[in-house]
């Protein structure tokens, strides 16, 4: 019994440590952490693994999306990518089969709708993926209350779960979530599904400031961030910037001749440069 309690601590705490350390390093370097999302299986399984490995050279954390048939929190870009990925046979089981091709240079985070993980079993999954450099989870359909109900059992040997905060959350709720998250706090930039947009919800800036006042935690912002200018703009408020659909779009429109992901690398370079905070 004592033994299992200890190993539970190990898996969650180890993952948490790996994630938070990247934020600390970025902070020391005077920049915001760069978190990049990419879906497994798009445009095909081997290419997606190459892309994820490539991204992990520039990013501080790489989110790997597990394709799902009903991605209700995602916009057209990721919906289309998931549809193609599923046709390619990409799912939680084939992801596990392909784990050996994952050569991550930074900690990975598995981003999945709950059902595939529920079917696979979160403990077994945590055990397998933690051996290949994945340090945590993001579940877009898991709010605070259900996380507490389903995943807070003692003895649950799993990786840490990073929770989301939305602009329409009350400050009280946002703080509750920030206390319960096991890595960083994922702030949703504005109401809506994933995908490029021009404007962000003012309330999320306010939530970020207020949460920071009462808690020592790392805040990353995501949803709709598609260009280096936005990265610079948001970097002054947030500890981390999450980019997703924009990377998928680059691969979507990639020229056939572009085999070494030049466009993607250029984009990542520009974005990374803009994570450095301008000193006044």
């Amino acid at each position, binding site marked *: 019994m004592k033994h299992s309690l200890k190993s539970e601590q190990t898996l969650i705490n180890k993952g948490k440590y790996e994630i938070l350390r990247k934020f600390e390093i970025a902070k020391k370097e005077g920049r915001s952490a760069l978190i990049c999302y990419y879906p497994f299986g798009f445009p095909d399984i081997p290419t997606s693994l190459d892309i994820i490995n490539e991204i992990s050279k520039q990013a501080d954390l790489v989110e790997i999306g597990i394709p799902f048939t*009903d991605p209700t*929190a995602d916009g057209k870009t990721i919906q289309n990518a998931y549809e193609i990925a599923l046709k390619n046979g990409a799912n939680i089981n084939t992801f596990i089969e392909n784990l050996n091709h994952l050569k991550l240079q930074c900690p990975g985070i598995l981003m999945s*709708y709950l*059902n595939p993980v529920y*079917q696979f079993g979160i403990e077994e999954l945590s055990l397998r993926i933690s051996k290949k450099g994945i340090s945590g989870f993001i579940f877009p359909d898991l709010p*605070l209350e259900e996380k507490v*109900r389903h995943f807070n059992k003692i003895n649950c040997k799993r990786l840490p779960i990073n929770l989301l905060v*939305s602009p329409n959350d*009350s400050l009280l709720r946002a703080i509750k979530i920030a206390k319960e998250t096991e890595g960083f706090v994922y702030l949703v930039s504005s*109401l809506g599904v994933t995908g490029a947009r021009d404007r962000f919800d003012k309330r999320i800036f306010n939530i970020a400031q207020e949460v920071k006042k009462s808690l020592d935690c790392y805040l990353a912002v995501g949803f709709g961030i598609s260009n280096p200018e936005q990265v610079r703009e948001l970097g002054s408020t947030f500890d981390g910037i999450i980019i997703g659909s924009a990377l998928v779009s680059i691969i979507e429109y990639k020229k056939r001749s572009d085999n070494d992901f030049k466009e993607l690398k250029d984009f990542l370079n520009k974005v990374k440069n803009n994570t450095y905070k301008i000193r006044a």
Partner: protein
Amino acid sequence: MLHRNRYFGKYGGSFSAETLVPLLIEIEEAFEEFKKNRQMKEELEIMLKNYAGRPTPLFYAKNLSKKIGIDVFLKREDLLHTGAHKINNALGQMMLARMMGKKRVIAETGAGQHGVATATAAAYLGFECMVFMGEEDIKRQAPNVRKMKLLGAEVIPVKSGSKTLKDAINEALRFWIANAQDTYYLIGSVVGPHPYPRIVRYFQSVIGRETKIQFKMLKNRLPEALVACVGGGSNAAGFFYPFIDQKDVKLFGVEAGGSLKDKKKNSASLNYGKPGIFQGCLTYVLQDKSGSVLEAHSVAPGLDYPAVGPEHSFWKDTSKVEYGVVYDEEALEYFEILSKEEGIIPALESAHAVAFLEKLAKKGLKEAVVCLSGRGDKDLETFFKIRANSYQ
């Protein structure tokens, strides 16, 4: 915080995007307030009576009884305004939307019945209305699409996934996430995140309550059995709920088995699915080994859904309700039989429940009340396309 009481046994819950959680809490508060407010409940009752046409008759189907060899009573929800039980819930939830000060309601629809009911209630109560409908369903249910447009609703064709009911719900959820401030999502079945399964069952329970009173007046006792079709399961939930703890009343839910020619494609999640997390709740879902949700199939678009309301999952596991399967071919046969025997054209969804009577008669049951949840005008085209050779 989301309410503790959001589960039915292990099923249900609120697995939604965080953006929707503040709204779900707000809706639950409005619902609790509504239940305590006598004036508002009276207003709804008057609307259900004078506008929607309640109570609906409980009708003894003497010809059908003779033919099948079991006494059949039909709870005539098909006689309601807009032709199905969906109006009960649409009017009820529209009052919640009004309490919350929302100007716009959105809805998903499969057969078009819930879409028409919502468009109707929106026209009457002065809401802007958008209905999400799969492209496949738009083709199969053209008359209902025209009705919605005439009623002033905007019909949004959904092109993603299987282009049917589940995709319409996905798209409605996406729209709602982006327009949470001014929009109320009027969900049409006992599905989705808490508090929806409870809200829809509450507004549909009028079906069961009336049946209980009407049957008692007729026979001075309770019926032997109740039968209702189950897609998401709203008519069945409302019909069964007032009887759920009545041990002497047998309850039968009927799922759509799809075509006999291809039994792999069906909509019978309680019979052939397993528990999973889908569209906001933990419930039985048709899915593969990796947790991908399968495309459902049924000739009845209102049943064409790969999951089911979480309370039905609970009722199945606790054996409070028995869930059977009826195939497309059997439903089509009884679509025709009920028309010819009683002069009542049922919705293809309801025809599944009627067809199940034959199985109950074989089991030795003597009497059953069927929830005739809707009328079949919308299905004529589907029927005559399949039976083109028999009617020339």
